[in-house]
């Protein structure tokens, strides 16, 4: 009896982004579902901090539909996540522009903060509200840098790639963004 080595099949969730993108290009929508599940949370978080929650589901949907349609043009040499966050940033920019042109007010979110806690930490909710309002006060380019680097913890190199700006510009905007937000928090009584 000959022993046949059994090669364990790779679990779909272990496949790399690149491999899943290849699957999508072959028309496999299940590969896209896995990409969605892998990146949805961060995309949602970025959009929430750059826009507001009133249209968040629609914005997330917009990002992933643009990603699906744009896959044939996606350069395989680049990171999928960088490309996807770029799309998220474009969607956020378009949304804000449309909101400004439509004279819609960006809603300040105080109601939609952490809801998963059993015993609400009032100070935590207060600080969350302050940070959200502080972000809304920043210029959009400063806000973007702060969200991507400080809150989403993306390295400066990746932030530069997403926004297609030099790393020097990332550093400069980060400096000004932190200074502006720090000043806002101090005015609200938070001294760090």
């Amino acid at each position, binding site marked *: 009896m000959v022993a046949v080595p059994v090669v364990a099949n790779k679990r779909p969730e272990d496949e790399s982004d690149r491999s899943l993108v290849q699957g999508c290009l072959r028309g496999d929508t299940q590969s*896209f579902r896995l990409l969605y599940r892998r990146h949805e949370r961060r995309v949602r978080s970025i959009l929430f901090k750059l826009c507001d929650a009133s249209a968040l589901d629609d914005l997330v949907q917009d990002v992933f539909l643009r990603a699906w349609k744009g896959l044939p043009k996606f350069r395989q040499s680049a990171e999928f996540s960088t490309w996807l966050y770029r799309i998220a940033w474009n969607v956020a920019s378009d949304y804000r522009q449309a909101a400004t042109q439509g004279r819609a007010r960006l809603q300040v979110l105080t109601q939609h903060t952490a809801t998963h806690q059993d015993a609400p930490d009032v100070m935590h909710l207060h600080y969350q509200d302050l940070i959200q309002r502080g972000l809304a006060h920043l210029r959009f380019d400063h806000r973007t840098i702060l969200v991507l680097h400080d809150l989403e913890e993306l390295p400066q190199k990746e932030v530069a790639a997403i926004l297609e700006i030099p790393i020097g510009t990332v550093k400069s905007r980060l400096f000004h963004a932190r200074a502006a937000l720090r000043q806002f928090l101090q005015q609200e009584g938070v001294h760090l």
Partner: protein
Amino acid sequence: MSQLPDDDSKFTNFLRRHQPQPPPASADLEERILATIKQDRVTQMARSRRRSLYWVPATIAASLVAGLLTYRNLMPPAPNPNDVSSLETFIETNWNGTFAADDSSDISPLLDAVNSTQEAG
């Protein structure tokens, strides 16, 4: 991540600890997105099939024209009457006297044909 000065570290730690969290997605958001994508794929495939059908009559027409031209080019032309006459003269000239007089019973059928052509002319 780059090294941060102490106060910036405290600042970013504070931001991360208290950063606003987005509300959860609607329960059906994933399915809505996938349904839209599947519909988009169906539309794309139908469009691609329609586009390929446009080529069928054009391909048939092109094949017919190519076939007609090829036939015309490869078909040998009808022989020129002057050429036929020259050929007969050549044969007569070269084959005359090939066979001896008492071999008349064995005269080549070709010679007969040449003679009969001459008599007819």
